[in-house]
């Protein structure tokens, strides 16, 4: 069965069973490409506009991967300096957000390497072996209003777990990409993710 056949049947299924709004994704933020070209040509206002549009995303990623606001600001600063230096190499083959995101992740990982942060936390192995005995209070709900607790718990994860968790569950990376970025096996990435999630569960239920 071909892909297009599948797609049409899925569309029919969706149309007949679900009521939904038509929503869309902006494929290529044209303004980003134009701004990047302008900034590369020496337009400082265009660069400032790029900063205005993207600094929250960059800072959020740094904050969640580092778990520290001050370090996250320092790294955000480094990221935008790198953007300035490299913006001439951005050709628009991918979305600017994708390019910037990769650049940010690489900066964070370089930061870890410079500081000798070990991503593999073998000492954390088996820390949650007793989850079965956790009473059913473990189902305590993480509600929308508890996002602060979730942020805090993420910041308390060991760097190895936190890096994989943030990349996979917050930023939507696949294990193959994480494995390539971190230079670890896919199995290690999966294992770190699972341990990270279980540790988060522990942290959230202990609140």
């Amino acid at each position, binding site marked *: *069965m071909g*892909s297009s056949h*599948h*797609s049409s*049947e*899925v*569309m029919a*299924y*969706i149309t007949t*069973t*679900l*009521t*939904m*709004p038509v*929503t*869309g994704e*902006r*494929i290529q*933020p*044209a303004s980003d490409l*134009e*701004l990047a070209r*302008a900034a590369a040509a020496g*337009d*400082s206002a265009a660069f*400032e*506009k790029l900063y205005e549009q993207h*600094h*929250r995303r960059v*800072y*959020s990623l740094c904050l*969640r991967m580092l778990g520290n606001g001050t370090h996250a*600001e320092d790294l955000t*600063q480094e990221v*935008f*300096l790198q953007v*300035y230096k490299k913006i001439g190499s951005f050709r628009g083959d991918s979305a600017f957000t994708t390019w910037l995101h990769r650049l940010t992740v690489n900066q964070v990982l370089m930061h870890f390497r410079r500081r000798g942060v070990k991503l593999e936390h073998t000492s954390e192995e088996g820390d949650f*072996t007793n*989850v*079965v005995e*956790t009473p*059913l209070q*473990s*189902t305590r*709900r*993480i509600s*929308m209003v*508890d*996002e602060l607790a*979730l942020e805090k718990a993420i910041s308390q994860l060991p760097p190895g777990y936190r890096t994989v*968790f943030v990349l996979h*569950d*917050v930023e*939507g990376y696949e294990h193959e990409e994480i494995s390539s970025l971190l230079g670890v096996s896919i199995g290690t990435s*999966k294992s770190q993710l*699972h341990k990270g*999630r*279980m540790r988060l*569960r522990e942290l*959230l239920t202990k609140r």
Partner: protein
Amino acid sequence: MVCKQCQELLSEYIDGALELGEQVNIERHLCDCEPCRAVRDDLLQIVHFSQQLPMQAPSTALWPRISSDLAELTPGFWSRPLRWLVSFRTLNFNFSVPQLVGAAAALAIVISIGVIVSRRDSGPVQLLAGPAPSANSDVKPLSQTDLQQLEKQITQLSVAVEQRKESWDPELRTAFERNLLYIDQSLVECRHHLNDNPSDGVSQELMLNAYREKVRLLEGFEKF
């Protein structure tokens, strides 16, 4: 399968990354094991809310620091006038099946949560479909037997769907798994509300609808 084995595989299970045999074994175990279901629900919650974390903002002092560094790097850069006005192209929109399915499921979740929250905050509300449950609602409470029957039906359908999955293309598989995840997350929400208030008619109805939706989804995809 014992609980330890089950829990070691739960992350891959909720990510839809397990082989058919392992998945079926886990689902059978989950049907009979409340503690493992609780762990699964917690992990689903963590994954769900992690995807929705809002962006954070740095201090307003950051940009002056950056622009100061840039001024040192390239004297004159920040004093150049705009050479041309940046024009904005018309935004292009495109839709894919997974996006549409995701949007539909997300809307369903938002509506479900909105209804529950509204009801909690301001009493009975009118549901989008069907009569509004109220304090003296005649919605039949979900019995444990009803739930077990539904879960058994879902397990059987899941097995059938898993057998079909191998012939699916990646797009169809992604659409299915994402939609299934959203429904499971809705079920988790309902379970939590019913834990807090077992007689909540709205949550009972929403949970029943979510189960039915899951059955419809599985039945629908079983044909592909």
